[in-house]
């Protein structure tokens, strides 16, 4: 015990609570429990967007953010990409996935290849669908903006971790007339996506997207577990605020807040 960092006991409690909730609900979902998940607007629009691109004979552009796969938003984006690639495979629409990060590039290629295989259309898959551009944020943006203007994709997906380039990409895409579905958990970039895109997955919606789209019990169960943790956190916040207001148990707030 001498090695245990007791200042992190609060985090350990939260971690255990969280894992218990998630695992319990995964178990329940697998044995056929209630799997209701509320509608997430941007996600229902994906099929429509890919469908429109197919009709118009134009490509679907998927930008998986600019960060590497050390960022959870990128992993979440690849889960959505898997779904989008499944749709382009089924509809026979052209898919273009330009990359800024080389590891994301390597991962995205595996994701898309598998999605085409799974959809039963490995013949439509080509290695040029997922390609690498450059490691610089703005050079990448310039290249993707150029693609948007020249090839006028009918649907742009801007999903993952974005920084200042968010608005450059979203405005260029808007001007080129594409349906745009964006998603990020970068708080500072959300206003720009909300203003310049048709649909935006906000923060937690992005992380839940893969599970929502997969419709798999285990995935949906984990969303339920996460919801229950959220409810518990909200409850603790309410309790904490009451305690602070009537000045009892001042220890709760400071115990939770220590870092």
């Amino acid at each position: 015990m001498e090695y245990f960092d007791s200042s992190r006991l609060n985090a350990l409690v939260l971690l255990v609570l969280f894992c218990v909730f998630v695992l319990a609900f995964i178990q329940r979902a697998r044995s056929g429990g209630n799997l209701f998940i509320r509608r997430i607007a941007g996600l229902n629009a994906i099929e429509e967007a890919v469908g429109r691109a197919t009709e118009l004979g134009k490509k679907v552009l998927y930008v998986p953010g600019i960060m590497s796969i050390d960022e959870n938003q990128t992993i979440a984006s690849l889960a959505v990409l898997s779904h989008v690639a499944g749709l382009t495979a089924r509809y026979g629409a052209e898919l273009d996935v330009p990359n800024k990060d080389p590891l994301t590039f390597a991962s995205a290629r595996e994701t898309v290849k598998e999605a085409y295989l799974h959809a039963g259309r490995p013949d439509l898959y080509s290695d040029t669908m997922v390609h690498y551009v450059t490691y610089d944020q703005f050079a990448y943006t310039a290249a993707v903006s150029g693609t948007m203007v020249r090839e006028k994709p009918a649907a742009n997906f801007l999903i993952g971790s974005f920084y200042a380039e968010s608005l450059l990409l979203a405005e260029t895409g808007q001007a080129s007339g594409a349906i745009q579905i964006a998603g990020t958990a970068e708080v500072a970039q959300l206003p720009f996506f909300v203003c310049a895109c048709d649909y935006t997955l906000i923060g937690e919606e992005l992380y839940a997207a893969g599970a929502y789209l997969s419709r798999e019990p285990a995935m949906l169960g984990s969303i339920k577990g996460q919801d229950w943790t959220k409810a518990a956190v909200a409850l603790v916040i309410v309790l904490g605020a009451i305690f602070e207001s009537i000045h009892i148990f001042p220890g709760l707030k400071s115990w939770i807040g220590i870092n």
Partner: protein
Amino acid sequence: MTGMELFGTWIAALLTLCLMSFLYKDNPLFRFAEALFAGVSLGYYIGITMDQTLRPNLFEPLRDSGLTLETGHLLFAGLVGLNLYTRYVPKIAWFARSSLAIYVGYYVGINMVQKLQGEVLPQAAATMVDLTGGGSPTDALNALVVFIGVLTVLIYFFFSVEHKGVFGKASRVGIWFLMLGFGAAFGYTVMGRISLLIGRINFLVIQWIGGTLQALGIGG
């Protein structure tokens, strides 16, 4: 300014104008700058990665202290890195997956605890506000707004329940908070973005045109 600097400034200024021409429409000058930018930036990161990542973290420790207990794990790093290249050998292409698996695994682990400890806990604690404002009506009002704002936004993110009835109303208030926050953040960012443009215009006017005039002995 030396001749070489003036030459560089001219190149930089012309490239600046090439990129800016995109605002009017796509054109060959923009495409030239875009292609050069993509190439130069990738080359730049080749240099940076070799000089700032691989050299100090891998080559120098191995060269300076050889293979010791402390540097042994670097061989593992090198192997996991090199394993990424197995994708070029069709028969064992799937080897590369293992490197991705380790990389992703390590970081999702870190992210998990960091998000819970570094974000959920402090943000939750900060929302445990004294709703009486310690006697100050303004503080009490602000505390109440923060309290309601955080809770309704959390309700908006609740996925397991249909958003109707009281729950739906609360979630709607949450959306209003989000919109207010987004609008304010948008307005706040305008200034910083315009400053960037001022920086470019200053470069063109002062360094490029001013510098050239100075070099020609015109103006001050």
